[in-house]
């Protein structure tokens, strides 16, 4: 039993949210830790005072309770104190908000070369802002019970469940749904956004290039649908696979080629079928 309790202590998600796959996820974690530290003080303070009052003032024969009805100064004090703490959290949230909400510029250009980074101040915007420099937009579409991705470009490439992206590139997501409400969530890549039919929701991520372990070609981030979407909700998985630009381009070209071949094959088979039918009809 002790081993059972000790086991999760080593895991990352015990106290803090997942991060490490994208700057916005990291910023959310930082913000979370700031609130966590503050919350820990409040929690320990309040609970300790409550328990102290419960034990210290336990009834004993001969003890008399102080007949106090209130203390205006004290009450005003803790009301104002509570307000101040919340103003502090509000302040920090708005400082961090830009980092979380607004997409950062890509670290690489379309050809996979490093681009120079400028330290610029970013502000929260009502709608998602467009990052400077290159970025790529993928349309994420939720359907019972699969995620579909539409890649940018002429080829109108679609993949399901697995999304492949180049690392270092800022990926903008346009999230929609075809049937019911779903929620797109890859914990290590940042927050979740609901896919609501009839609406387009926005999210972004940028996988750091060093996320790919040395000697390997790709890094995989896993997640699953977060909004009850029907009986198979538990099996609606999504994965994001990060590759280096060269590998991504190769994967993309291969995929397009495969699809073209498949399409040609199907067309040929159909043709054969029609031909056979026609010749069969003709032979009659």
């Amino acid at each position: 039993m002790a081993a059972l309790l000790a086991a999760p202590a080593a895991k990352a998600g015990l106290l803090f949210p997942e991060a490490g796959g994208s700057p916005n996820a990291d910023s959310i974690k930082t913000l979370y830790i700031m609130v966590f530290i503050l919350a820990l003080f409040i929690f320990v303070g309040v609970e300790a005072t409550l328990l102290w009052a419960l034990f210290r003032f336990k009834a004993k024969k001969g003890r008399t309770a102080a007949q106090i009805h209130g203390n205006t100064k004290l009450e005003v004090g803790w009301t104002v104190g509570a307000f101040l703490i919340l103003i502090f959290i509000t302040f920090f949230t708005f400082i961090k908000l830009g980092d979380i909400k607004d997409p950062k510029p890509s670290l690489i250009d379309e050809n996979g070369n490093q681009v120079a980074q400028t330290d610029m101040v970013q502000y929260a915007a009502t709608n998602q802002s467009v990052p400077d420099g290159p970025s790529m937009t993928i349309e994420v579409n939720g359907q019972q019970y699969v995620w579909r991705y539409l890649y940018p470009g002429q080829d109108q490439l679609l993949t399901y469940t697995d999304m492949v992206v180049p690392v270092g590139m800022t990926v903008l997501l346009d999230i929609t749904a075809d049937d019911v409400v779903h929620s797109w969530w890859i914990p290590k890549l940042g927050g979740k956004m609901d896919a609501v039919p009839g609406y387009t929701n926005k999210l972004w991520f940028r996988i750091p290039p060093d996320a790919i372990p040395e000697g390997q070609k790709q890094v995989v981030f896993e997640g699953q649908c977060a909004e009850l979407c029907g009986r198979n909700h538990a099996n609606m998985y999504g994965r994001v696979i990060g590759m280096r630009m060269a590998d991504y381009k190769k994967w993309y070209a291969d995929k397009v080629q495969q699809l073209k071949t498949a399409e040609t094959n199907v067309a040929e088979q159909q043709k054969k079928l029609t031909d056979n039918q026609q010749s069969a009809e003709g032979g009659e």
Partner: protein
Amino acid sequence: MSDQTHTLGRPQIIARAVDNPDKTRGWASWFTTTDHKKIGIMYLATVLVFFILGGVEALLIRTQLAVPDNTLLTPERYNQILTMHGTTMIFLVVVPVWAGFANYLLPLMIGARDVAFPRLNAWSYWMYLFGGLALYGSMLYSPPEAGWFSYVPLSLKQYSGTNGQEAWIYMVHLTGLASILGAINFIATIHNMRAPGMGWGRMPLFVWTILIYAYLIIVALTSLAATVTMLLLDRNFGTGFFDPAQGGSALLWQHLFWFFGHPEVYILVLPAFGVFSEILPVFARKPIFGYKAIAAATVGIAFLGMLVWAHHMFATPMSTTVLAFFMLMSFVIAVPTGVKIFNWIATLWRGTVEWTTALLYCVGGIATFTMGGITGIFLAVFPIDWQLTDTYFVVAHFHYTAFGASAFAMVAALYFWWPKMTGRMLSEKVGKLGFALMFIGFHMTFLIQHSAGLSGMPRRIYEYSESDWTVYNFISTIGSFMIALSVAVTVAGVVWSLKRGAIAGPDPWKANTLEWFTPSPPPENNFDVVPRVRSVEPMKDIRREIEQRTKTEQRYKSGQPLMR
């Protein structure tokens, strides 16, 4: 001197005269009664049945999730059970449990002989019962499976084709109407029927919270009634309020539902705060600290509670301005809530705290609710919420608030007022055993769920693969069975007490409010004479008065512990 104690000058509410004892006893009396106490007991008994049903559903959920890749329940069955669990606990347990306690206690606490509209009151109860039966009737064919908040389009005909969703809608309508009529009744009673001298500043705090609870019900449940009617029309009569394919909006449902849903949270929890505010001063043998602040905080929470609904929807497409507004309002509501917690602690401070079961449930409830309030701050920060919403972190959070405050307060109220309702005491030993099991079981079940959510486990999934989540879920399931054991212990204690509990007498706790002025259980029509009220703690005044009049020192001294 004695004339002042018994004021007869004020017109009393005339309750229906009863001359035939057969009408007031016997089993048929339960069907025909308009006595607020009998109706209150019927509410509470019905709540117990639904609480056990909802609890069994919770155990099924926990058993299914105890190990990875479990096949105990099919996905369909699992969704039905999670929908029934949430719906039952909210609509059929926690809202009506306060209607039950309020029915029983409110007229007694304010020195009235019944509620303002006794027949309407009976009708409320029967509609609540039939609402519950309408929902559970669907067990015979196919229960609803779109979750307790029934998001569209999943709850539309295309995706939920069975009639279970209609059963859910009828349940909402029937219990909603029951609550609205009950609320009108409570409001009319509180405004018009208080004992002479009981101004707004001398009203017991439980009555204050019931008053605000009633006003919130009128705002929230009328809105919900309209919302579910739109769903009923969409499903059966070809309208397109919510169907995007017909130009409707899926987000409209979420806004309308949570406009009810968040005030609903305070409907569940404010009367629990009232229970804490009544019981703590009695066993600390001290006046409540900051009466006015607590009453004002109740009003403040209720008002702000109507302005925070979209914090349930932070991940939907919304502009940053809207997100920021709802974040700030959610922060602001933490202030009056915090004020209450500080006032409760200050009430215990320098008192002589008697560790009765009722008090322990109150303190346990406050300790638990504090944790729920603090995780609420994380969820109110919308960028953090993007990580946490729809995960087990949220499941843990709302169980810490709704279970921590409401369910702990329910049991506290049971232990505190049971002697008044039945004339017998509940066993303190059994009570403390039940409390220990409940407190440890609760935290074992829900504390670890925060971690499950932080490591990426979404809510409402019927299975998961072997991962970090395995250990978390296993611990949680063990805890849930401890809670079940605690409930079993409490129910056994209740049954035992009915036959063999010690005789309570009118005022076993030496408490503060008027319900302890009448015999236990109180007769029909409650009081022969209603005393004039001079403070928030009329029973203290009455005891002092008796002492002065009889010139004999009472065995119990006000402000000192009651040694048993």
